[in-house]
């Protein structure tokens, strides 16, 4: 066991864990942040995607010890994020989820795409989201939701730099 100093959702946290524990395991099992879901546990499904230092990252492919000195945001910590608010609304309106297992990872990844650019076509969304797997086959709604969120941000002239993200 080792003592880790992590920054999760803006809070400095000390947690005792084994070096082999992934960030996802620490979030879920030691910190009860169960909004981060674990599907495949080897980087293929994207369910566990979180934000590490402003970059979408598979929480199953980064050890908790590797996250020391970095800022981690989970779906819980992005509650008041302005892009997330827009995405949540369009996911709701487009029925972009069914069981919800993949949704937190989908939202974190979609937020990164929108931070990068709001000028996107369907192909860009499909390629950008290709690493996020939905087993309810709800991709049509997800793609539509992200395109609509991008359009709303474009129309309102919102970009990541204006939002100070």
């Amino acid at each position: 066991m080792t003592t880790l100093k992590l920054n999760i959702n803006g809070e400095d946290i000390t947690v005792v864990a084994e070096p082999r524990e992934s960030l996802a395991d620490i979030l879920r099992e030691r910190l009860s942040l169960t909004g981060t879901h674990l599907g495949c546990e080897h980087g293929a499904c994207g369910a566990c995607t979180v934000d590490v230092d402003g970059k979408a990252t598979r929480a199953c492919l980064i050890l908790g010890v590797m996250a020391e000195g970095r800022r981690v945001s989970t779906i819980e910590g992005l509650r008041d994020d302005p892009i997330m608010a827009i995405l949540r609304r369009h996911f709701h309106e487009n029925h972009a989820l069914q069981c919800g297992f993949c949704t937190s990872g989908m939202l974190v990844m979609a937020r990164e795409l929108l931070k990068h650019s709001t000028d996107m076509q369907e192909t860009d969304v499909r390629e950008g989201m290709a690493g996020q797997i939905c087993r309810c086959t709800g991709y049509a709604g997800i793609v539509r939701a992200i395109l609509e969120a991008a359009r709303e941000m474009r129309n309102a002239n919102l970009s990541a730099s204006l939002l100070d993200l």
Partner: protein
Amino acid sequence: MKPAPFDYVRPRSLEEAVRVLADAGEDVLALAGGQSLLPLLALRMASVRMLVDIGRLGALRQVEDGGDNVVIGAAVTHAEIEDGRVPDPGRGLMKRVAARIAYRAIRNQGTIGGSVAMADPAADWPACLIALEAKARIVGPKGSRMVPVADLIQDIYTTSLARDELIVAFEIPRLDARVKTGLAKVARKTGAFAMSLAIAVVDDGPRAVRVVLAGAGSRAVRLPMTSDVMQSSTLPESVLRDAIGRDLAQSMDATDDYAIRLHSAVVLRAIAEARSK
């Protein structure tokens, strides 16, 4: 799946990292972005007694633009190359290769040095760096050495790195201003490892044509016969196909009809793209 228990150390300097690796003995591996190594450990296809985290070492993050040569640190990520945050000696080729590796969430953490050290036969960077004639700068307890990436990778998941040696950076010659490059990749889905990946570099000043193929054998290789016939600017496709067929017979582990058609098509696409520029 969870990996079996291991120890973890995060050295503060390159010298300390090399010392830790040299003193630690067997079953110790360097960890950079972890995007290939951690899944292998989780699936228990690999096991390790200790991981030495080199991902944040300043010495592995350095970038130098020397005009004719660009040095890119081994711990630079695929996303940093994709976004043009480091110079691209391939005149756009490296950015394109980076953008098609796995998924963005993987590219945000995975590193160019990790990709080469892992030496997956279908990986993108070994093929690209061989096509660019890049050399790896390697540091160990006895000092440093330079090795062409084409010689560093010896076989499937096998390099000439000793267990206490690290790739620090790649020295990459800048392509000629009039160069033409082509890239073709076939994967089962966006983000999956390539079933076949070809890169063609043509008209690179005085340097010979390089057509490099990954996914066909145990490592990415420059196809010698294909590259040589390409020196001639007017060339019937039948001659090219014949040369590709002879190269494939040399480099492929198993020659079945589908694989030959797949690799031939991918090589021809990369060449056609380079020639169309």
